């Protein structure tokens, strides 16, 4: 029976850094590694709020990225 095991977690924040010529939003993603695998959504939200408060860029979305090892 194969299984998956959480290998690492990352926090990815997507910012809107202005508007391009076609008035489409310019999105920039920033990824923070070294995230504790046992982290909760609330904890990630707290860090997201802290980071967003320091930048002029507008937050467009936040994601938790998990990589899972596939084991036989």
């Amino acid at each position, binding site marked *: 029976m194969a299984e998956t095991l959480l290998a690492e977690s990352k926090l990815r924040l997507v910012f809107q850094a202005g508007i391009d010529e076609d008035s489409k939003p310019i999105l920039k993603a920033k990824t923070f590694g070294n995230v504790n695998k046992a982290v909760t959504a609330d904890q*990630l939200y707290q860090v997201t709020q*802290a980071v967003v408060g320091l930048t002029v860029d507008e937050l467009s979305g936040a994601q938790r990225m998990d990589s899972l090892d596939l084991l036989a």
Partner: protein
Amino acid sequence: MAKTLELQFVTEGGNNARLTVDNPKEPIEEAAVKQAMEAIIAAEVFFTSGGKFVTAKGARVIERNVTDYELV
């Protein structure tokens, strides 16, 4: 002029760890930066090889000059 705010933390193991935030709000308010760093420490989201973040060591703004050339 691309500016980056660098947040410097010390981990449990005494190592330095850095988080960077692009396009920081200016002027930089030290109290706001300190508060954000304390929130990041309190959230206990990051876990490096030296353990979690325990203290806020400092912060600095890094400016990078980028000159684009049109190659015709």
